C-alpha cells in the first residue's frame, strides 16, 4: 500500500565530510608539493647560475676576518665554523644579561605601580609608557650614538674610586684572577647553594607536617655569605684583582665592556623591562581584591600578604607573559647588527654570508639557533609555570 521511498541516511559522495576532508587535504598536499618542487628547482638553477656550491664545507675553511669581541679565543686564522660559535656565545651573553636586568627592572617598576607613594607610582607609569612605545631600534641608536658617544675620551674617563672607568671606548672594571686555593671557595659556594636548597625543602616539609615555621630566609642568607667567606679566610683570599690602568691611549687589564654591548644591553633592558613591568602590573591586578581583604582580616601583615597571598597568585599570570617577553628579547638581540655588536646575526648572517655567499645554509642555521634558544626558554618557563600553576582537585 504505502509508498516507501528509500531515503538514504548517508549523504552523497561529495557531501560526506570524510571524503571532503580527504579531498581537501590531498589538494593541499599537491599544492604544497608543487610549491616546494618549484622553489627547490628554481633555487638549484639559480645557485648553479651564480656558481654557488651548496653544502656545509665552508664551515671548515679559514674565515680571515677579525671579530670585535669574543668570549673564546678567536683570530682571523680560525674557521667559519668558529665564527658561528663566537657569534652564538655573544648572542647568549647579551640575551642572558638582558633577561636578568630586564626582569629586575620590570619587577621593580611593576611593583612600584602599586606603591603608596604617588611620585613613585608616576615614575613607574612614565617609564612604562615611554619605553614601551618607542621602537627598540631607535632606543639602541639613542644609547649608542647619542648617549654613549657623548662620553669623554680615555684620558678624561669618568671613574668610580679609580677602579671602575667609563669612557667613550667602553666600561672598564677590575677582573678577579684566581690563584691556587680558589677551588675551595668555588666548592664552598656550591655547598652553600646545595644546602640552602635542601634546607628549604626540609623547612617546607616540616611546616606542612607540624605547622611550625623556620626562618629560612635569614638562615639562607647566612649560609650563602658565611660559607664562602669562611673559605676565603681559611685559604687566605686566593684572588688578586686585575685593575684596569691607563696606558697610552687606552686602558689595559681588567674586564672591558665594549660600548656596542652596553648600548644593546641598555636598550634591551629598558624596552623589555617596560613590557615585563606591564606583565607584573597585570598579574598583580588580576588577583581579586577580596584576597587582600581576606588576608587582612586573618591578621597578616602587609608584607606577608604580598609574599604569601598576592605574589604566588600573580605569578600564574606573569610567568606565561614573561616567557614570551624573554623570547622576544632574544629575537630582538639581532638588532646588534645595526650598531655592529658581533652577535650571531652580525657575524654569521652579516660577514660570513657576505664572504661565502652560502645564503641558504647560513640563514637556515641561524633560524635553527633562534628556534632552539626559544624552545629552551619556553621549556624552562613552562616547567616554572607548572610549579606556580593553580593545583586544582
Amino acid at each position, binding site marked *: 500500500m504505502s509508498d516507501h521511498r528509500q531515503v538514504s541516511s548517508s549523504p552523497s559522495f561529495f557531501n560526506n565530510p570524510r571524503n571532503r576532508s580527504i579531498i581537501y587535504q590531498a589538494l593541499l598536499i599537491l599544492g604544497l608539493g608543487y610549491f616546494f618542487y618549484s*622553489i627547490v628547482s628554481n633555487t638549484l638553477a639559480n645557485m648553479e647560475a651564480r656558481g654557488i656550491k651548496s653544502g656545509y664545507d665552508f664551515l671548515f675553511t679559514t674565515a680571515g676576518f677579525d671579530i670585535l669581541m669574543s668570549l673564546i679565543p678567536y683570530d682571523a686564522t680560525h674557521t667559519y665554523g668558529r665564527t658561528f660559535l663566537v657569534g652564538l656565545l655573544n648572542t647568549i651573553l647579551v640575551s642572558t644579561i638582558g633577561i636578568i636586568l630586564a626582569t629586575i627592572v620590570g619587577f621593580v617598576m611593576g611593583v612600584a605601580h602599586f606603591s603608596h607613594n604617588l611620585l613613585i607610582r608616576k615614575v613607574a607609569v612614565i617609564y612604562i609608557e615611554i619605553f614601551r612605545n618607542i*621602537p627598540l631600534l631607535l632606543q639602541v641608536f639613542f644609547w649608542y650614538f647619542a648617549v654613549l658617544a657623548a662620553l669623554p675620551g680615555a684620558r678624561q674617563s669618568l671613574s668610580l674610586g679609580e677602579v671602575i672607568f667609563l669612557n667613550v671606548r667602553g666600561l672598564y672594571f677590575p677582573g678577579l684572577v684566581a690563584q691556587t686555593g680558589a677551588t675551595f671557595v668555588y666548592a664552598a659556594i656550591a655547598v652553600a647553594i646545595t644546602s640552602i636548597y635542601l634546607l628549604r625543602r626540609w623547612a617546607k616539609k616540616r611546616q606542612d607536617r607540624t605547622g611550625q615555621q623556620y626562618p629560612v630566609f635569614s638562615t639562607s642568607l647566612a649560609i650563602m655569605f658565611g660559607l664562602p667567606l669562611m673559605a676565603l679566610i681559611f685559604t687566605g683570599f686566593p684572588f688578586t684583582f686585575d685593575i684596569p690602568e691607563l696606558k697610552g691611549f687606552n686602558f689595559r687589564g681588567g674586564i672591558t665592556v665594549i660600548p656596542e654591548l652596553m648600548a644593546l644591553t641598555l636598550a634591551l633592558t629598558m624596552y623589555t623591562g617596560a613590557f615585563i613591568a606591564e606583565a607584573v602590573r597585570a598579574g598583580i591586578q588580576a588577583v581579586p581584591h577580596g584576597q587582600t581583604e581576606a588576608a587582612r582580616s586573618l591578621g597578616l601583615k602587609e608584607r606577608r600578604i604580598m609574599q604569601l597571598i598576592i605574589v604566588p597568585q600573580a605569578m600564574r599570570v606573569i610567568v606565561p607573559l614573561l616567557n614570551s617577553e624573554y623570547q622576544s628579547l632574544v629575537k630582538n638581540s639581532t638588532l646588534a647588527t645595526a650598531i655592529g655588536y658581533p652577535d650571531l646575526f652580525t657575524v654569521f648572517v652579516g660577514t660570513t654570508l657576505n664572504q661565502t655567499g652560502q*645564503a641558504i645554509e647560513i*640563514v637556515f642555521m641561524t633560524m635553527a639557533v*633562534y628556534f632552539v634558544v626559544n624552545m629552551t626558554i619556553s621549556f624552562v618557563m613552562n616547567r616554572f609555570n607548572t610549579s606556580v600553576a593553580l593545583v586544582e582537585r
Partner: protein
Amino acid sequence: MRTFKPLPSQPAPKETVGAVNWIRENFFSSVGNSLATLAILMLLAIILPPAIDWLFLSANWQGVTQADCTKDGACWSFVKAWSKQFFYGSYPSDELWRINLCLLALVAVIIASNVLHKDWRNKIAIPLFLALPFISIVILDGRPIGLSFVSTDYWGGFSLNVLLAAAAIIIAFPLSFLWALGRRSDMPMIRSVCVILIEFFRGVPVLALFFMGSVMLPLFFPEGTNVDKLLRVWIVLTLFMSGYMAEVFRGGFQAVPKGQYEAADSLGLSFWQKTLLIILPQVIKISMPNILATFVMLFKNTTFLLIIGIFEMLSTTQTALTNSNWLGGHATEGYLFVALVFWICCFSMSMISSSIERKLDTSHKK
C-alpha cells in the same frame, strides 16, 4: 506627628582631608616613602632645569641650515630642514599629494568603518579596506593610471612606515584568520601546515625574515624574475604579522562559548555561515585589544627595515645625521623627534586598546 529626621552626616575625620593630609598620605606616609620622595625630587631638580633649558629655552628654532644654530641648546633647525624627508622620503616634491591622498584614504576608510551602518559597513568598508593597499600602490607607483612613474627607490619616510604597516595588517587580517581556523581544523594535514606556518613566523627574529626576503627570496623565483624590494618586504611583514595575529585569533576562538557554535549548528547554518556570521564578529570583538597591541609591535618593527636599506623614517634620520652639511652631532635632536612621532602614534593606539579592554572587562575591580 513626628517625621523621621536623620542626623546630619558627620564631617570626615580631620586627619584625612585637606591639602596637607593629602600630601602626607601620598608622599610622606612612612620613613621609606619620605626618603623616596626626597630622592626623586632631588633627581628631578638636577635633571629637569638643564633639560628644559637645552630643549626649549636656549634651543634654536629659526633657520634651516646648520649655521643658524648659534645657541647652546638643541638645534631644532635640523629637524625643520629635514622634516619633508622625515615624512615623505625622497618622493618627488610635486607628487606629494599622492602620498597624502593615500593616507587620507586610509583615515577615511577607518572612519567609515566606524560610523557607517552595519549593512553598508560589510558591503563597502570591508572591500574598500582590502582593496586599499593595491589602490595605494597604483597611486604611488603612477604608471597604471597614467601619472608619472615614481620608482620604489624614492618611497620613504614616516609615510612609508604607516603605509607598509597598514598594508601588512590589512592583508594579514584574512590570512591570519584562515591560519587560526586551520589550526583548529580536524584535518591533520591542514592543522599541521597551519601550526608550522604560525610557529615559524613567530619563532624567527623578524630581522632574519627580512634577510630571508632580501637574500633568499630571489633564489626561489625562476631566473630573471625581478621582484621589487618593497614588495618583498610587504610580503614578509604580512606573513610575520599573520603569525602573531593567528595566535591572537586563537585566543579569541577559545573565548567564544561553545553554545554559540551549537546554536549556529542547530539553526542549520553552513560551516562558512557559522564561522563568518556568528563566530568571526565575536572573535574580532574579543581580540581587538590584542590585535591593536600586535599592530603597535608591527608598526614599531617597521623601523627594522633600516637594516636592509629601506628608507623609512629612522634610516632617513641616519642619512640626515651623516649629511656633510649637518655634521654637528644632532643625533639627540633627530632621535628625540623620531621618538616623539612614534610615541604619539603608539601611545594613542595603546590607549585605544586599553579603553576597549576596559569596556569588555566586566569583572569586579576594587
